[in-house]
């Protein structure tokens, strides 16, 4: 399994001027790694919707890479988004799925179907152009530059080491809620 920080570092090295939309725990680690915070949007306030927000940005700004940092607990709330994204197949959309198999910010309860979900199979069957799965840090870090230079939509499934917390979910949501509208307008201005 891979540390959250290592996924953030691998993406950060290749992000360029990509818009990065984040959710939940991976967003907490991403903000420590990002060197373009004006292009980042945390969306904890709307759990499950990060894939759809990123999809909308990718459709509307086809010349700009969009990277959505999703979680398995979030994506199963909005699983149909895979099919909607696959239907339009935006070439500039990169969907990174952090799989810890649980709701880590509520104490580590398992998600429905934990361990049984074929994430890359779901993405490919939904119309994604490619899907990759990583459990090894070195392999993930080596492959990330190539994957993020390919046309999308791509799902990058990463099996991560859980970071279990308790009662931080609401605090993170409030933090996200406080900055999300301004961050959206920051990105809007950058894309104008």
């Amino acid at each position: 399994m891979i540390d959250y920080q290592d996924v953030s570092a691998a993406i950060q090295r290749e992000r360029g001027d990509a818009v990065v939309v984040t959710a939940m725990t991976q967003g907490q680690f991403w903000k420590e790694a990002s060197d373009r915070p004006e292009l980042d949007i945390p969306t904890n306030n709307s759990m499950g919707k990060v894939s759809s927000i990123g999809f909308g940005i990718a459709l509307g700004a086809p010349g700009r890479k969009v990277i959505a940092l999703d979680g398995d607990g979030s994506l199963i709330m909005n699983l149909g988004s895979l099919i909607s994204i696959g239907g339009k197949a935006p070439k500039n959309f990169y969907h990174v799925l952090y799989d810890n198999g649980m709701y880590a910010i509520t104490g580590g309860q398992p998600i429905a179907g934990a361990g049984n979900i074929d994430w890359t199979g779901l993405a490919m069957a939904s119309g994604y152009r490619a899907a990759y799965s990583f459990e090894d840090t070195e392999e993930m870090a080596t492959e990330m530059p190539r994957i993020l230079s390919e046309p999308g939509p791509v799902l990058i499934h990463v099996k991560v080491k859980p970071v279990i917390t308790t009662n931080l979910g609401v605090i993170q949501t409030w933090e996200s809620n406080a900055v999300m509208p301004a961050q959206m307008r920051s990105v809007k201005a950058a894309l104008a």
Partner: protein
Amino acid sequence: MTTGGLTASAMVEHIAAQGVTHIVTLPDSETNFMYDSMTESGMEVVQISREGEAIAIAAGLWIANQKPAIMIQNSGLFESGDALRGLGIGIDLPLVMFIGYRGYTRHGDTPDSAAQFLEPFLHTWGTPYWIVEKDDELDRIGLAFKKAEETSKPVAVLIGAEYVSV
């Protein structure tokens, strides 16, 4: 194509005239008559799998400096409640939501709970709305877009065409 008193081409022309770039939609019984006109209008139709995606995708399109509208059924609006809260009202998103008013009857007596709860739902969220039933009411679409821009909030246009079997 016409349903009740609404003509698809006239309705779509009124929407396109507002500068709408994308229609995020899941076809329903009240708005399906417009589908072909929308696909031929120059606006990009974005099909979704479930209505809860619509406001989130529209928010993304707005961030990308596009002008989206959404078109879903009232039952799907209920499913979209958290997105309306967090991504519509929560980020001050100027968005016009075209809502198929399933179960609508002008006299107000309907057995369909999707209709019974729609207007109370919108009142609860503080979301202004207009009902359109006939082509000569389509100027209300312009009023809705104006209100969304002035308030920077979601507003609704309810498609009140009663279902007519063909």
